[in-house]
């Protein structure tokens, strides 16, 4: 009985769907444990040092429009955190009145509300005009 069961298991039409099933379950398990919707990052001023008190806007980009999803302030160490991100395709921009504005940074995620920490800091610079 055991050998027969093993032979069936090795048969392609059973093994491949099984493998796909396991991969899907594994991936969903990973997704469920990592979709708190937190987005963390650091904002640096024109001089390269962390910039406190800058407002960071998060926008949700879908194919037609991008709509505002919220703003937050950077703490003393220049770090900021969003906790309510529901999208998989967001854009961030930091700005501080009198100091300047950062470029629009596109953050693409592998699933919705994936917890992510930005590798590259947002650089606020004096924009011409």
């Amino acid at each position: 009985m055991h050998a027969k069961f093993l032979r069936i298991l090795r048969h392609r039409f059973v093994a491949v769907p099984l493998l796909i099933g396991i991969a899907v379950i594994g991936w969903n398990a990973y997704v469920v444990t990592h979709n708190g919707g937190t987005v963390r990052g650091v904002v640096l001023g024109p001089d390269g040092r962390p910039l406190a008190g800058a407002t960071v806007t998060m926008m949700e980009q879908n194919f037609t429009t991008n709509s505002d999803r919220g703003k937050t302030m950077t703490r003393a160490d220049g770090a900021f955190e969003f906790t309510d991100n529901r999208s998989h395709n967001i854009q961030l921009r930091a700005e501080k009145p009198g100091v300047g504005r950062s470029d629009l940074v596109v953050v693409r995620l592998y699933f919705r509300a994936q917890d992510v920490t930005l590798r590259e800091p947002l650089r606020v610079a004096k924009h011409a005009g």
Partner: protein
Amino acid sequence: MIKKRTRQTWTHASLHLAMLAVSFCMLLPFYWVLKTSLTGENIFVYPPSIVPVHPHLFYYIDVWYYIPFPRYLLNSVVVSVLSIAANVVFNALAAYALTRHFRGRGAVITVLLSCMMIPFQTTIVPAYLITAKLGLLDSYLGLALPTFSTIVCIFVYKASFEAVPRSLIDAARIDGLSELQIIRRIMLPLSTSAVATNIVLSFIWSWNNFLWPLIVVRDPLMQTLPLGLSRFLSYHENTTGALYAFCIMVLAPGILLFLMAQKEFIRGLTSGATKG
């Protein structure tokens, strides 16, 4: 002796060369679809960029969230499984019947051949009216019924059923097997390549079926995968990368099934030896 081996290696090399050329021609357009699905660049830029420019997988993720992909996938799978199951049974039965000589056999074959000649696009309205009368609108059966039997596959079965030697069938009949058992125990195992061809072709035809689901389904939850296409051809936004990613995602199951069914092709070869 040496001359024979060099001649053989030379023919092998030329075969490989020929196949490499064929593969290049076949793969080139496909490579462009794949490349654009990874980079989403505008293909009308000149000169064309051969190597993908910083590719990423996020268009595939956009496609997943952009249309109710899991639901469409489920619909497509159910319709295809229904279609394959019915195809294998109906085609095998019909082909077995056609291997027997009976009055009206020629008429049936001409009817089948003529049915092949009626293009689907000309039958949309009447087929919809008939499905409505059967009460199968917005249902898996309504979606799958037109693909329940394929004439091409009937003739593929017929060709391979006729290759089965008479002696095996007579022996089975003497042992008291019923017709259905003969088909299941003797005919089908000996024509695995015909079965594989039938599975692959009926899967692809029902999976890529675009016009019929578009007409017969009104409930958005019952739509099949290809109907998500219009979402990426909408006038109003840039969806090039997502359009090609969508096409690749619709293609993937067909290729996966073909890879798995390939073994059947080869086993069909080896089992052929026992037939002689």
